[in-house]
């Protein structure tokens, strides 16, 4: 069977789903193919923290822009998405981290993001379960939480309402030069192809600088009121930046159901998706150091997932090398839920040749990437 469309997207995670919706809005004929089912990869494993980050100017621009796009959607989001404007508190354990809180606050404030610096007492009042004393924290009230697979399903539903077709359970064996071959013999012809396969993207497009970075998450039973904001240790970036060794960081999220998600861990070079007791135990110990009461809760499930990581911590959004039909929308590492909507806008601007709201240059796959980071 041969099918002809304007755009073929591979990967029905939140990024592929957002792209499908955005391009369908532009009246393009869109097909989306996934080897298993929507949100089966990193989207289904993710925490779903819509967060503004300032690891780099480009990361700030993308996360901030995308957060405003989420805000625009707010009124329409169905309850299943469990949108919760809980805010983030970056927790500073010592004076050094508090200095970083002040820097971060100034950076955000200059760029129009609301923040509030919490001193030791204000932090205790905001989150009584945190161990005392801690140096302080930075409240970012505009950050929020969603349930990622439901968000992806919603984007796909909206895309489908505009004519996009979803082909789940279909493996793509070849992608490029305006066509995609499926395992079942179907051939899609498309003016534009988008590889949105997350950490699996290099399988279809060899040579792209994306590596899996494994993470563990725990979800607890329901404990109303125990944690009110998404809590992340200020030292998080130190750990997220560690590229040679496995790392853990305190990162706890309250769900609308009053369950708590406990993270986080980061590992390169682990191919299997099994839960690893050693790193899980390190991750939980880190969380217990910040919120001692967590150690008395019932965890009901533990799982792992793979973030699509790039050498310079920025996603790959745009055309890939000499194939004028092939676009990449991957490499979002731990920020794919946040940046899915902005990614879709940038891809759409590139395909339709319109001017995007933010510069697309920092995310173009043709950029120079610091190569030593993947050593």
């Amino acid at each position: 069977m041969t099918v002809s469309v304007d755009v073929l997207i591979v990967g029905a995670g939140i990024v592929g789903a957002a792209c499908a919706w955005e391009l369908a809005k532009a009246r393009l004929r869109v097909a989306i193919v996934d080897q298993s089912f929507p949100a089966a990869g990193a989207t289904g494993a993710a925490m779903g923290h819509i967060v503004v980050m300032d690891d780099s100017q480009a990361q700030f621009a993308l996360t901030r822009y995308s957060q405003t796009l989420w805000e625009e959607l707010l009124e329409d989001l169905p309850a299943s998405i469990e949108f919760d404007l809980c805010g983030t508190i970056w927790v500073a354990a010592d004076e050094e981290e508090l200095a970083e809180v002040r820097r971060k606050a100034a950076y955000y404030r200059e760029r129009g993001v609301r923040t509030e610096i919490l001193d030791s007492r204000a932090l205790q009042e905001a989150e009584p379960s945190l161990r005392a004393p801690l140096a302080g924290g930075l409240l970012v009230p505009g950050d929020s939480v969603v349930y990622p697979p439901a968000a992806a399903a919603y984007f796909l539903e909206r895309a489908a309402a505009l004519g996009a077709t979803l082909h789940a359970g279909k493996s793509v064996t070849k992608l490029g030069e305006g066509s995609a071959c499926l395992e079942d013999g179907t051939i899609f012809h498309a003016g534009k192809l988008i590889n949105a396969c997350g950490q699996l993207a290099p399988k279809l497009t060899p040579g792209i600088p994306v590596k899996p970075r494994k993470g563990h998450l725990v979800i607890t039973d329901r404990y109303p009121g125990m944690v009110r904001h998404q809590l992340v240790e200020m030292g998080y970036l130190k750990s997220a930046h560690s590229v040679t060794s496995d790392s853990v960081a305190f990162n706890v999220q309250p769900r609308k159901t009053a369950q708590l998600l406990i993270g986080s861990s980061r590992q390169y070079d682990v191919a299997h998706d099994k839960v690893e007791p050693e790193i899980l135990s390190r991750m939980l110990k880190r969380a217990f150091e910040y919120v001692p009461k967590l150690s008395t809760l019932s965890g009901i499930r533990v799982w792992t997932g793979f973030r699509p990581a790039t050498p310079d911590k920025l996603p790959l959004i745009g055309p890939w090398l000499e194939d004028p039909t092939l676009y990449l929308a991957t490499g979002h590492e731990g920020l794919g839920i946040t940046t899915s909507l902005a990614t879709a806008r940038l891809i759409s601007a590139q395909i339709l040749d319109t001017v995007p709201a933010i510069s697309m240059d920092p995310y173009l796959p043709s950029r120079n990437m610091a190569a030593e980071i993947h050593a």
Partner: protein
Amino acid sequence: MPESVTVFVNDRAVTVPVGATVAVAVMISEGVCRTSVSGEPRAPLCGMGTCFECRVEINEVSHLRSCQILCEPQMKIRVRG
């Protein structure tokens, strides 16, 4: 050895035979153990610690399986609606 034991379920005294589980006291007193995420009442189903439907708060520790814990004098049990 006393033949009965008194516990408190949502501050109400309930007396059950020694050896009765917390689930028994809760069912006598409240008829329900907890409320599901979607708001449905839940009660002991398997009675052997597997289904987790009978969770209650005991002495300020939440989510304990009432079918696996025997009543002890003065236990404070809380069932949330």
